[in-house]
Every structure is written in structure tokens, then in C-alpha cells.
């Protein structure tokens, strides 16, 4: 149990699900052995109300209702498991099969699956059960087969994602057969989501099996499952309600047990599970700036940590003067982004942020400063992996957001303003771009679009978090030029983050080198150019910068 707890498995969902599940398993195993007689023997005590002897009364053949409900657990679980297995295995075979077949078959197959999924599955089951004649096996087959299309579709969706990954492409290039690709790469990598889906299928099968009984096409006497018992007693719901209690409670318990287990599995599969939001103590929204403190941004002893875990930023202090461009350089995981986002007031919710001072102008970033001021005064530009803009909104809406929300500019005027700004950062046909969705624009255009917004909102501080990392060098060049330009024209201070010393040295007035959550060196571009660095880490970063050598003698790279 402690082991489970450590792996984040011992949640209330898991505990509840396991407990219920175990109880049901015990009932399934023991009840048919121990309770066969009261459950199946005909007696004269027919149709009796609840009593000490028969807690839930007896049915019209004098059999104990509670015993029957318990004994039915075995058959119900077996049937539901059977139906689930058919749906899952069939679904996987069809779903993966469709994805591994040729493009033509795939297209037709997917389309057919889509239609099949939309078809009322109960009607589907009804036909199958009717043809096979009602009974245990035909119910299982009917519900199982009826569940195949939707599971196949889900599998196909998962397989679609996996089959476009590089590892599948590579395996195919290596000549691995489609079957082996499916078995080695596709299936194992979707095992977890499939397992979670299977729990959903299980609870759905349970309910559908009983619905089949309700229509009269389920299990037939003398066999009995929850559905049959429920259906038998449902006619008495108004006259002897206790008789309904046994099977309905059992159905619900079974369903809940499986759903809870599924939820627990899903939670575990979610990599973000275990994150717990931290309530950072909130300071006042604004702080007083001491006389003589000219800095626009002041950070003193900033510490960011995983609650109860590692410290990711270990006491960083920095200042940015108005109009100053400060570069923050370091490799992945050095804490540079966390530092920048703390400055911007948007640290990840699950991290603990402490600092002696953390302010931008008089805005206390440890408190809850006025949203409008934050929006107007601090502009943030992120790395562009193609996902920084909302895919379902047109560029115009998104780029004018700050203008309209915080500067009270009307839509028409905001569009006009931003269009002019886009033209200034060399974007052609700005009006058309504003009407386009983000995916129609290249990464460079999107970044320049972001930069253009600062032309019209004139923030005091621009926080740029690796804004050129995902771009080609030529595009990076152009974007950097625009940064330089707005800096010149707006005079905004800037916190510019990069892992590339080569990039920052061209743009920044001052460069801070970060490593393992600490600032290890502070440099001017001049020092950098002359190689006047002291920390070995800075030296290593410098060595890593490649420049084009166009001199006659080839540069040797070591």
C-alpha cells in the first residue's frame, strides 16, 4: 500500500474501485457455491416481503432474492468480461488493421467505421441477439460485436497518432513487417489508453446487457444475470420495490467499481497527475519603490521549488533598467524560463515561488496586480512551435486581444492599428493575414505578428522566452531584427531568453548566464565578443556557438 501511495496510485478512486471490485469478485466466486440452494431451490414461500430470513424477500417461485442477486454476480461478470473482450479485441484488430492497410482501404474503412459508430448499437445488438436466439452466449456476442465499431474507431484514432510518429516510420523503413509494427510499436504504445477505454466498455457492456434483458433478448431462464433478475423484478417495482433492490444495487456497484478503477488508471496515465497547485502567499498588488531605485524590474532572491522537492531556481537576483535589454542564457533546465515567467507573473501553478522582491515597475508579481496594467505593461512572446496561437481563432482576434481588452480600442480600430503594425514588421497583405487562421501563417510570421502587437500596446517590459528557437536561421535573423527595431522605436525594456549565446550577444545590453537555477556570470556583449568570460560553463556555451567562417582557411571544429 505504501508502495502504491508512493507511485501515486492509492487515490480514493483506486481504493474505492479495488474494494468494490474485490467484494464483487468474492461474491462471484463464493456465492454460487454457498448460496446455490436458497437461490435456485423452489419453495412454497413465494412472493414474500423482506423478513429476517429473506432480507430482500422471495420471488414468485419462492427463491431468495438476495441470494439470487449474489449468485448472479458470477455469470454477470463473466458475460460482461466476455462482451468487453470481444469488443476490445475485435476493435483493436479492426482499428489497427485499418491503419496498417493501404491508404485506399484505410479511407474507406475509416468512413465505414464512422457510420457504424453512429449506428444505434442497441439496435445492432438486438438484431444479432435475435438471430442467435436469446441466451447467454448470444447476449455476449451481440453486445460484444455491437461494441466493436466504437472501440475500433478509438483504436484507429490512437493508431493514427502513433503510426505517424518517427519511430513507426523508422521501423517501416527498416523493413519491419506491418504485423510486427503493430505488435511491437503500435499496440504497446496505446496499451494504457486502451486499458482505460476498456473499463468504459466494461461498464457500458454491463448496462447494455441488462438493457438487452429488458427488451427480452438477454439471458434466458434458468440462467440468470443481474439484467434478468432486474427485469423479472421490475414488474414489481410498484408493488414490491425491495425485489428490485438486489439486482439494481449490484449492477450499480459493479459499474461504479469499474469506472473508478478506470478513473484511477486514467489519472495515473496522465503525466500531470500528482501535480498539486500551490497557493503561494499573496502580497499586496503594488509595492512602493524606494527612492533611488531606478530599475524597472527588480528581483531579489527568487526561489522556485517543487513543493517538498527540488529547488529549481535558487535565489536569483536581477534588475532590468527601463529600456534595457537583458539576455538570460542557459541550457534546458537551467531555470531561465522559470525565472522569466516568475517575472511575468505566470509561473506554473504547481510550483512554490518565493522572493524578497519581485516587481515590475510598482507591480508586485507576488501579489495579484491589476490585470489591465499587467496586460498593458508586460508583453510576453513565447517560443513558436506552431501552437502558441489558438487554432480555431483568426489571427486578428488574437493579435488585437490586449488592445481591445485593456486599452479599450474598438474592434475596427484595433484591426486597423494591428494591420499597420504588421506592415511595419514586413508582413505582406496584413489585412488578409488578420482574417487567416494561425496555421496558414509561417512561424516567422506568427512571431513577427506577436512583435507587432507590442508596437501598438507599447508595454514597459517585453519578456521573450526563446522566441527564435524553433525558427530557421534566416527567419530567426529577421525576427531578431524586428526585436531590435521595436526596442529602438519603443524603448521597452526586454528580458530575452535563449540557449544560444550567439543570439543574445547581438541583441542584449547585458547578459546573464544561468545554470542549475543560479546566475553564474554576468557579461556585456563586448566581453562576450572578446571572449572575456570567466566561468567554464560560459566558456562551454561560447564554444558551442557556431559561426560561418568565410575566410580562405577552413575553420577546424574540435
Amino acid at each position, binding site marked *: 500500500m505504501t508502495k502504491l501511495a508512493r507511485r501515486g496510485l492509492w487515490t480514493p478512486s483506486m481504493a*474505492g474501485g479495488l474494494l468494490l471490485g474485490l467484494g464483487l469478485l468474492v461474491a462471484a466466486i463464493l456465492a454460487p457455491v454457498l448460496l446455490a440452494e436458497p437461490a435456485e431451490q423452489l419453495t412454497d414461500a413465494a412472493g414474500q416481503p423482506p423478513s429476517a430470513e429473506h432480507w430482500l424477500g422471495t420471488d414468485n417461485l419462492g427463491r431468495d432474492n438476495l441470494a439470487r442477486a449474489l449468485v448472479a454476480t458470477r455469470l454477470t461478470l463473466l458475460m460482461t468480461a466476455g462482451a468487453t473482450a470481444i469488443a476490445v479485441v475485435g476493435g483493436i484488430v479492426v482499428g489497427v488493421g485499418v491503419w496498417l492497410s493501404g491508404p485506399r482501404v484505410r479511407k*474507406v474503412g475509416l*468512413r*465505414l467505421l*464512422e*457510420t457504424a459508430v*453512429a*449506428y*444505434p*448499437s*442497441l*439496435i445492432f445488438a*438486438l438484431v444479432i441477439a435475435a*438471430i442467435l436466439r436469446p441466451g447467454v452466449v448470444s447476449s455476449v456476442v451481440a453486445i460484444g460485436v455491437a461494441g466493436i465499431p466504437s472501440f475500433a474507431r478509438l483504436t484507429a484514432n490512437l493508431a493514427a497518432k502513433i503510426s505517424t510518429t518517427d519511430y513507426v516510420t523508422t521501423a517501416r523503413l527498416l523493413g519491419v513487417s506491418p504485423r510486427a509494427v503493430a505488435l511491437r510499436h503500435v499496440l504497446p504504445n496505446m496499451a494504457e489508453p486502451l486499458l482505460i477505454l476498456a473499463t468504459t466498455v466494461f*461498464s457500458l457492456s*454491463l*448496462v447494455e446487457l441488462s*438493457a438487452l434483458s*429488458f*427488451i427480452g433478448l438477454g439471458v434466458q431462464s434458468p440462467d440468470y444475470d443481474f439484467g434478468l433478475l*432486474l427485469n423479472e423484478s*421490475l414488474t414489481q*417495482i410498484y408493488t414490491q420495490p425491495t425485489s428490485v433492490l438486489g439486482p439494481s444495487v449490484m*449492477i*450499480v456497484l*459493479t*459499474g*461504479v467499481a469499474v*469506472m*473508478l478503477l478506470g*478513473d484511477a488508471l486514467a489519472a495515473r496515465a496522465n503525466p500531470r497527475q500528482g*501535480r*498539486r497547485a500551490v497557493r503561494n502567499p499573496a502580497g499586496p498588488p503594488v509595492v512602493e519603490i524606494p527612492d533611488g531605485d531606478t530599475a524597472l524590474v527588480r528581483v531579489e532572491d527568487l526561489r522556485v521549488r517543487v513543493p517538498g522537492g527540488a529547488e529549481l531556481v535558487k535565489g536569483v537576483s536581477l534588475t532590468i533598467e527601463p529600456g534595457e535589454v537583458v539576455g538570460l542564457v542557459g541550457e534546458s533546465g537551467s531555470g531561465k524560463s522559470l525565472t522569466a515567467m516568475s517575472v511575468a507573473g*505566470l509561473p506554473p*501553478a*504547481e510550483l512554490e515561488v518565493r522572493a524578497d522582491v519581485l516587481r515590475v515597475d510598482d507591480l508586485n508579481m507576488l501579489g495579484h496586480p491589476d*490585470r489591465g496594467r499587467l*496586460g498593458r505593461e508586460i508583453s*510576453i512572446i*513565447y517560443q513558436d512551435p506552431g*501552437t*502558441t*496561437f*489558438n*487554432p*480555431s*481563432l483568426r489571427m486578428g482576434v*488574437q493579435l488585437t*486581444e*490586449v488592445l481591445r*481588452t485593456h486599452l479599450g480600442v474598438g474592434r475596427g480600430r484595433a484591426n486597423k492599428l494591428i494591420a499597420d503594425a504588421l506592415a511595419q514588421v*514586413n508582413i*505582406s497583405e496584413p489585412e488578409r493575414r488578420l482574417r487567416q*487562421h494561425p*496555421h496558414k501563417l*509561417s512561424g516567422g*510570421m506568427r512571431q513577427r505578428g506577436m512583435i507587432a502587437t507590442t508596437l501598438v500596446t507599447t508595454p514597459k517590459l517585453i519578456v521573450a522566452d526563446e522566441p527564435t528557437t524553433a525558427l530557421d536561421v*534566416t*527567419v530567426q535573423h*529577421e525576427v531578431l531584427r524586428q526585436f531590435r527595431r521595436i526596442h529602438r522605436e519603443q524603448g521597452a525594456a526586454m528580458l530575452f531568453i535563449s540557449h544560444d549565446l550567439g543570439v543574445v550577444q547581438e541583441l542584449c545590453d547585458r547578459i546573464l548566464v544561468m545554470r542549475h537555477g543560479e546566475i553564474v556570470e554576468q557579461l556585456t556583449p563586448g566581453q562576450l565578443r572578446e571572449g572575456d568570460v570567466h566561468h567554464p560553463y560560459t566558456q562551454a556555451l561560447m564554444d558551442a556557438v557556431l559561426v560561418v567562417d568565410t575566410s580562405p582557411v577552413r575553420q577546424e571544429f574540435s
Partner: protein
Amino acid sequence: MSISQSPHPVPRTALRDSPWLRFGLQRLTGLLVSFVLLVTVTFVIIPLIPGDPAAAIAGPEASGAEIARIRGELGLDQPLHVQFFDYVGGLLTLDLGTSFASGQDVSAMILARLPFTGQLALFAILLTLIVSVPVGMLVAVLTHGGRRPWLDHVFNAVTSLVYSVPQYVMATLLVSVFAVGFRIFPAAGAETLLSLVLPTLALMLLPICVVSRVVRRETTVVLDQDYIRTARGWRIGRVRMFGRYVLPNVITTTLTLSGLILASQLGGAVVIETVFAWPGLGQGIVDAFLARDYPVIRGTILVLGLLATLIIIVVDVILAIVDPRTVEADHD
């Protein structure tokens, strides 16, 4: 220097290359293919159901001679391929045939039932969306980033519980409490608008669980997206954030799912219709099964298939309007 711009400005394509046209054609072909499949499969498969329509019509006290006569009258003594061509011939003139059991026009019978089912399914899905989208989003937002773990557990437990109650038990409970107990709503039939309340409620509960869970999950996914981080950077208000940035991206999955639920409810409401004596298609097809009324079974299955496909197409079109990438993705 403009080298950072796309080197392949999309050229004006001929009409046949229009993604929308392709999209339309593809959907139409899909519709046709599934229709042909459905016609053939149902034709072949329905007579496999044990039980002779003639015996079902004649009843247990009829004589063997009488049953044989009815078989002849229904055309069941003809070779299967002759029956098939008759059937297909009828379909081509939009004639679904006449009911074995009642001699009534099958299309008229289906048309009489369709509005009841449609009404119920539409109401249920609309209300489902109205309830589960806000609930799902709210729970996602409130629990995002590991906040309020108790809400997380309560939400899971409650939805699991409601999800696990068989619909007919739920329906019966609703009737016994609200109709028979408090006499607030009619218990059965489809006379007034009030009659819709309980069946809709019974039909909604399961989809509400499914959809709100999905909305919640999708919202959580969306909240972790880069573009939400971007929007946070603009410090826009909560309402705008959820309305403009989260909702449209949640709604795509939700709509797809709702389409499927709507389609499956058109026939899948069998159980609810029985409890509430609601004269819809589900009830109709069960009756037809019991009477081995082949033309009605086939007709209903066909109509349901057609509706299911149509709903999918409509959802696809809506999605394509919401998010144009879906149309272009088909282009590959």
C-alpha cells in the same frame, strides 16, 4: 528580404481541387456506400431471425394451412433473389413496402414515429450539451493543476454512479417519483409538452455523464496548451478566456461525440420509449421484431442508418466551419 515567407503560396486551384468539393463528394460517397451495404446486409440478415412472420401473424391457434396461405400472401415463398429485387425496386421509387403485420405503408408508419423519436433525441442532446459543457468545463477549471482534489473525486464518483444505473431503472425511478408519486408530469404517452420532460430527463442522464467527462478531460487538455499560456499572457478575463479560447477547442470533440450520441439515441431510446409508452422508432422496431415484420424492421434500420450518416455529415460540416483545418486535412 522576404525569404521567411512561404515559398509555396497556395495557387488558386481548379474547382475539382476545392477541398470543400472533395469533402462533399467524399461524404456523399460514404453515404451511398453505407446505404448500399445497409440495404444488402439487412435484407439478408433479417430473415435469419428465428420465427416465421406468417406464424407470428396467424397466432398459435391458427392451422398449418392458414400459415402456409399467409406465407404465400406475404411473398415469402418466393426465392430470396426475387424478393430482393422486388425490395430494391421498391426502394428506388422510395417505397419501403407494406407492413407484414398490418398492411400499412411502411414509410408512413416510420414517418409517424420519427417526430416522436426526433423530438426526444434532439431535446435530450440539446439539454445534455447545455448542462454538460458548463459542468465539464467548470470542473476542469476548478480542479486544473491539481486544485481541489475532492471535487475531482466527487465528480468521478457521481458520474460513475449515474453512468452505471441502467436507463430503464432510472426511467422507472423518475416515473415513480415525479409522475406517480408527486404527479408533476404525465407518466406515459406523448400528448403534451410536459410529457417530454421525464423521458428527456431519463435519456439525458447517461449522455450527460459521458459528455461532461469528455468536456472535462478535453478542457484539461486545452488548458495545458501553449495558446492558453499565450492568452494568459494577454491577461484577458476569465469569461473571455473560456468563451473564446477554451470553448471552441473543447467543442470540436464534444460536437463529434454529441453527434454520435444523437444518432445512437434515435434508435437506442428503445428502453426509454417502452417505459414512457413513447411511440418512437425504438419502440416501433421492437414491436416489428416481435411480429417478425420484415419490411418494417428493414425500413427502420435503413432510415436510422440514413439519419446516422446525415448527422455525422452535419457534424462534420459544422466542425469544418468551426475549424477549417479538418477540411484541409482530408486533402492529403
